[in-house]
């Protein structure tokens, strides 16, 4: 029985065999918290009697959820995290130089192939796009990692997901991961790892891979990993903040099961209220009328997302009565989008462009929904009350679907507002 990628990584970080189900003590390469989870982690760290984080270059605090601070309570909370970071001399970036943690850390080369990464945020699994075992933990678990440089992990079974066929331009990473969650359900991978591969992955842009890895947790998974290929190694190689050793699944690795998707048959899909597994082709959703569109979040706030949405919106207007909020996930994305003229396309269309933050994704600020309002969002969760009132509704979709919907004022398949050759040209 060959080892899956997740087993290879756990074995390389412990001196145990990493048999499935075994609890292993693993060394952690990088550990971070945000403005919500950082302060309680700092408190637990002190309670543990710890004095110094295990390695100042491998521990980070990133304010991104309620920042720029939305009110006094969030300001106090961010301040507590920042003071801890400064006292420890660990990695810390101020508003204006940071971004949503799961976009920013890979960009800066802090999450690398073969790593074990723990973050006090459930979407830490996003780092799996780089072939890292990157997983979310709570604040106390994170504090323990800051103190010890290690944690315990149960070796999960792996579901292998293969994408085959040639990907049409209207199929994005978001459509791929929503299709998977729609098929296996929100607990289809509970206590497991997802491992993504297949011939169609080769040409899949990194930004789409981040989107796919990001939503592994919406299927209940511990993490979702891509097997490192040339694209991954090139991305990590030019950004790496330290040395890294990519790892690979063994030939004949044994999987809990395999799910295969033929991308030629895939269409743009949406997750309807109130669960990420309530997935249907966009054209079969009945074109519900919407009040808001949100393009951003750690799921879809990267350059490729902003670019494809902008290209759909170019020369058009946001429908009357609809608010469209665009939030690039980091300053690297923000500045590149500005240079390429994408931000101008949005503002000329009547959309709002905000500074990088989680913002409305978790119902924090900058676009909260009232009761009875409906929003098409590129984020990852459409639970009851996620973006505001428990009486509001959220539909999850790709940036292109979101942009098309902003223009028509209804949930809309991007193929219904763009000609077919638009999608073929997108590919280069």
């Amino acid at each position, binding site marked *: 029985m060959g080892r899956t990628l997740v087993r290879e990584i756990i074995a390389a970080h412990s001196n145990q065999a990493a048999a499935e189900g075994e609890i292993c003590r693993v060394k952690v390469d990088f550990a971070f918290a945000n403005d919500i989870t950082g302060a309680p982690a700092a408190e637990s760290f002190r309670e543990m009697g710890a004095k110094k984080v295990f390695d100042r270059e491998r521990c980070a605090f990133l304010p991104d959820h309620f920042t720029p601070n939305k009110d006094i309570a969030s300001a106090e909370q961010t301040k507590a995290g920042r003071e801890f970071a400064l006292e420890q001399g660990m990695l810390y970036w101020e508003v204006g130089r940071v971004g949503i943690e799961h976009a920013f850390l890979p960009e800066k080369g802090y999450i690398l192939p073969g790593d074990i990464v723990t973050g006090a945020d459930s979407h830490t699994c996003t780092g799996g796009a780089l072939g890292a075992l990157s997983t979310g933990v709570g604040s106390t678990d994170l504090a323990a990692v800051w103190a010890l440089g290690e944690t315990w992990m*149960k070796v999960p079974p792996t579901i292998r997901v293969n994408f085959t066929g040639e990907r049409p331009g209207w199929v994005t990473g978001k459509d791929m991961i929503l299709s998977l969650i729609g098929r296996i359900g929100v607990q289809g991978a509970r206590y497991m790892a997802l491992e993504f591969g297949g011939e169609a992955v080769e040409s899949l842009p990194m930004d789409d891979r981040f989107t796919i890895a990001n939503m592994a947790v919406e299927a209940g998974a511990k993490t979702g990993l891509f097997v490192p290929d040339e694209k991954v190694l090139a991305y990590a190689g030019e950004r790496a903040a330290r040395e890294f050793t990519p790892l690979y699944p063994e030939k004949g690795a044994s999987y809990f099961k395999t799910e295969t998707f033929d991308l030629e048959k895939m269409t743009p899909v949406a997750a309807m209220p109130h669960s990420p597994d309530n997935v249907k082709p966009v054209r079969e959703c009945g074109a519900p009328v919407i009040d808001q569109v949100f393009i951003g979040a750690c799921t879809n706030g990267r350059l490729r997302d902003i670019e494809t949405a902008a290209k759909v919106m170019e020369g058009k207007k946001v429908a009357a009565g609809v608010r469209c909020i665009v939030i690039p996930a980091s300053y690297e994305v923000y500045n590149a989008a500005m240079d390429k003229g994408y931000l101008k396309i949005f503002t000329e269309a009547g959309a709002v462009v905000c500074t990088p933050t989680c913002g409305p994704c978790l119902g924090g600020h900058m676009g909260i929904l009232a009761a009875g309002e409906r929003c098409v969002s590129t984020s990852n969760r459409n639970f009851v009350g996620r973006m505001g009132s428990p009486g509001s509704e959220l539909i999850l979709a790709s940036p292109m679907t979101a942009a098309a919907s902003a223009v028509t004022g209804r949930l809309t398949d991007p193929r219904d507002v763009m000609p077919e050759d638009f999608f073929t040209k997108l590919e280069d």
Partner: protein
Amino acid sequence: MSKVFKGKAWKFGDHIDTDVIIPARYLVSSDEKTLGAHCMVDIDKDFVKKISPADMIVAGENFGCGSSREHAPLAIKGAGCSCVIAASFARIFYRNAINVGLPIFECPEAAEAIETGDEITVDPAAGTIENKTKGQVFKVAPFAPFLQDLIGGGGLVPYVRRQLAERGKSA
């Protein structure tokens, strides 16, 4: 884990996510009592008012799915619940509950049979959940040995203290 829990059951469905256990708008505090005042508000706005101390939450599959917020088990504790019984727990919630000292019991049969209002007794040492109202007893599978040690030793905070002390000695 020798304490026995006795209380009334409050039943919820599958996939109770952390956003309904404690919505993000309250995540500007990590104080147990403050969070507890809003526990479950988006799914049952009177939940906190209705429950008595030591009552328990009983739920279906995948309880605690969603975010990594430790505020979720803290809110349940802060609301006064003694423990949670579910058919299954989401991974991060499971770890967090252990770390913040919220007792959790995975038992699909009990989760299925118990209804709101039933009088329940959980005996962790014996590994039993008794439904006094319906006269049923269910077995709970024990935690893995590593977790038993972790819980038995007082949780993660004292565990790390001990580890740091050992490292101090060997340094």
